[in-house]
């Protein structure tokens, strides 16, 4: 895996002309030793020739000396401030006293909103019927140990519809001590 990667890098360097002459000769011999390598070598050479040709054409079209002279002239030119009318911010058009009132109203609104928020957060809960809090009704068993006996837990409806707990334990009659 590593050798394949190095081989690719070596071929890339060969294509870019970055190998030492002896290495370049070795790669070339290796490529020319097989039909596939020879074909690849030809393709690369054609591609390199085409790129060099295009690059030479572009270089001929550009007057690099004139381009750099223009860049240097622009850099060294003095900065001239642009005399442009400055638009005042919209708030600055409000007269001073009114501006203060606007800010005051905004601050008061913010304060009122914060106060309402805090009041809602901190207000004690109340039940819909005005009581201090909703109170659960009825009774229920949380835990029971029947001991040596057997037992059953019932729920009986109370007069107000609430559920009432009944623990029924089977028992032999116990005489008076």
């Amino acid at each position: 895996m590593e050798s394949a990667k190095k081989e690719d890098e070596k071929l890339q360097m060969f294509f870019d002309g970055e190998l030492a002459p002896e290495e370049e000769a070795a790669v070339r011999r290796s490529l020319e030793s097989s039909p596939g390598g020879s074909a690849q070598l030809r393709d690369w050479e054609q591609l390199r020739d085409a790129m060099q040709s295009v690059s030479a054409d572009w270089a001929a079209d550009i007057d690099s000396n004139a381009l750099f002279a223009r860049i240097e002239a622009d850099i060294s030119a003095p900065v001239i401030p642009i005399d442009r009318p400055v638009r005042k911010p919209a708030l600055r058009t409000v007269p001073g006293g009114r501006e203060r009132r606007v800010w005051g109203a905004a601050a008061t609104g913010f304060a009122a909103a914060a106060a309402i928020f805090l009041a809602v957060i901190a207000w004690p809960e109340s039940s819909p019927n005005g009581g201090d809090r909703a109170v659960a009704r009825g009774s229920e068993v949380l835990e029971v140990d029947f001991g040596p006996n057997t037992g059953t837990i019932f729920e009986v409806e109370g007069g107000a519809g609430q559920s009432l707990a009944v623990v029924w334990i089977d028992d032999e009659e116990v005489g008076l001590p």
Partner: protein
Amino acid sequence: MSLIRHSLLIAVLFGASTASAQGSNLVRSDRAATPSNVPAEVLVVLAKEEPGEIDPQLKKLTALRRPPFNSFRSMKILSRPKLTLTAGKDALVSLPNGRRVKLTLLRVMPDGRYKVKAAINRPDKSDYLPLLQVVASAGDPFFVAGQTYQGGTLVVGVIVDPKKTAQ
């Protein structure tokens, strides 16, 4: 700018005072939720399947006419002791069969109901009901039934804070 600061200060002070009021409400409700003493009533009823009289005092307790109690045709109140439950302290009520009901107020639940521990046994024994923990709202009973006695069945009802009865 000072107006903004002034308004913000008012808002903060208002919020702080409201939160403080809420805090004091919580403190008050916590204090109210952990009363040191709560009245209670234990209803000891002898129920029999033989036709007979239903004690008039039990007519308000409609739960005693529903299953599993509906097989009883007669009900007689044997005792109706009133006691005070103190948090963490046992209260004892003697039953006619020699056993004792031991009641302990454990705490008041956030929903206002009372958490109560009960046990029914002969002294120094654990022969019947070693442990029962219930939550009950004020005035709403819970029942322990099944002990046989004099040819009938004992029905023991426990009502915490009976002044708020709503059976």
